[in-house]
């Protein structure tokens, strides 16, 4: 009884050291900055200071809110160690670059300088992110659509497989970026050629995985469907394709990774907009603070897109819950 009560209590409260971890880590990191970066531009220090005041403020507010909000408490219990580590890592970064000069400048600016670039160039960064998003979505959607169609055809029909598979095996493995010289010549605009390249990069894994998923549909599912009176359309759209969906999602994930790569390369070579272009442009001016700022935006952008695809999969493959561990 006592033990039970203690356990419940344990679970229902966030330990004090966990509540303090984030503000303390912030103070440590910012203190480090003040110590080592006395010569830094005051504007950098100012925005860095603002960031930490915000982190401290938010963590205090959340520490109070979690008293009344169990879901938040659960989330904090899970995330706080990670946040703490991330904040301390900023301090280490600061130490290594600005403090000890272990990495050469201007290639490795400290976190405060990167933050300053992020803030001062936010308009262009936002615009670049928007252009990247438009290009990524156009190319990805096109590639997925064509990939699904060709994958289903190759997986279902043996004549199509006979003629299509060799083509797929020979053309598919060429990295999409290797086509850039040809794409530039063939296509009417840089945007179109880049979208086409991204689509090509996505098309290969989606086709491959869809085809293998379709052709590996359990024969007994098809047999059962036939004895229920199913005709070809039912067999393809209501048996083979649903059975292939787990495989198709693997293709979608692989295609998404390939599309990020192709996007960044295509932007820095062809299209004069987007995050890939921004990075090489900033590099041209040796503004490495902006390069890192763009990398941070890319990390947030790409991982958000990846997370959205994960959410979609969790929704579509809800029937797998409990069968396999994701």
């Amino acid at each position: 009884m006592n033990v039970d009560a203690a356990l419940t209590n344990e679970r229902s409260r966030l330990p004090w050291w966990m509540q303090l971890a984030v503000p303390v880590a912030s103070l440590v990191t910012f203190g480090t900055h003040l110590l080592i970066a006395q010569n830094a531009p005051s504007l950098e220090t100012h925005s860095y200071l603002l960031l930490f005041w915000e982190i401290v403020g938010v963590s205090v507010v959340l520490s109070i809110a979690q008293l009344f909000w169990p879901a938040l408490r659960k989330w904090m219990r899970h995330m706080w160690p990670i946040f703490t580590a991330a904040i301390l890592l900023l301090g280490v970064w600061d130490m290594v670059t600005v403090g000890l000069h272990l990495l050469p400048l201007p290639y490795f600016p400290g976190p405060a300088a990167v933050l300053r670039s992020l803030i001062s160039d936010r308009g262009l960064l936002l615009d670049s992110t928007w252009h990247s998003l438009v290009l990524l979505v156009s190319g990805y959607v096109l590639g997925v659509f064509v990939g699904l169609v060709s994958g289903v055809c190759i997986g279902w029909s043996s004549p199509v497989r006979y003629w299509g598979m060799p083509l797929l095996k020979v053309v598919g493995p060429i990295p999409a970026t290797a086509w850039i010289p040809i794409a530039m010549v063939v296509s009417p605009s840089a945007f179109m050629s880049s979208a086409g390249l991204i689509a090509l990069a996505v098309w290969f894994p989606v086709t491959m995985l869809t085809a293998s998923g379709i052709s590996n549909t359990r024969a007994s599912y098809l047999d059962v469907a036939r004895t229920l009176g199913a005709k070809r359309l039912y067999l393809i759209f209501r048996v083979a394709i649903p059975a292939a969906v787990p495989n198709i999602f693997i293709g979608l994930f692989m295609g998404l990774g390939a599309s990020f790569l192709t996007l960044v390369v295509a932007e820095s070579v062809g299209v004069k907009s987007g995050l890939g272009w921004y990075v090489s442009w900033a590099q041209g001016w040796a503004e490495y603070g902006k390069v890192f700022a763009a990398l941070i935006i890319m990390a947030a952008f790409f991982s958000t897109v990846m997370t959205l695809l994960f959410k979609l999969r969790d929704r579509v493959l809800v029937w797998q819950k409990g069968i396999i561990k994701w």
Partner: protein
Amino acid sequence: MDASGVRVHEISKSFPVPDAPGTNRLALSGTSFSIAAGELVSLVGPSGCGKSTLLRLIAGLDVPDSGDLLVGSAKIVGPSAERGLVFQDPNLFPWLTVRRNIEAGLVALGVLREKRNEVDEFMRLVGLEAFANAYPHHLSGGMAQRVALARALINHPKVLLLDEPLGALDAFTRMRMQDEVLRLWENRRTTMLLVTHDIDEAIYMSDRILIMTPTPGRIDRQIDIDLARPRDRTDDSFLRFRGEILEHLHFAGNAAGAPA
């Protein structure tokens, strides 16, 4: 012959041997029998005697090398909703809920809208109303097989083919399910052909038992089980049938194994 009786006439079927290309193994040779409309017939025999092949042929999933297969007076030319099939593995579509699995046959025929209320009826019939929205992997083996039965019966097939449907279940579930299948059969009087390894099951359930000999499969003997239902598994006459079939299978095994 009645519209839902089954006639198997001089059926032969061979399969290529995977290890030796160009050679064929004869699975069935001149097999003949018939099932009257509404009759429940079991097919027993040693493994590999072609029972499942026979069932697949009647389902229309395979084509015989020679011979005729008829339902009523119509020749079987391919799979159709008038011949349902239930395997040992329930083979439920894992991406569909229980309800959607049972509806599958109606969707396949494009009649879901008109017959939606029948789905409820079938869910009640197999006692699965509470699991309508569960996915197949949440079901026990017995429940999954009940869904498979309901799915096979939704289109009111004239003939229901059962390929060791209870083979993977534990002994208790198995006996309960035998009663369940009998209840469905008595309810609907669907013609049923049951392939089983379990001689007790065959005697307990069927009107008639066909005993097959292996390589190539042939119907060796037919035994009418003229016991009143519900049958008692410990009854003397039940045990007599059991002894008779066991003896016959034993003898049949020796004969097949003996040098000619």
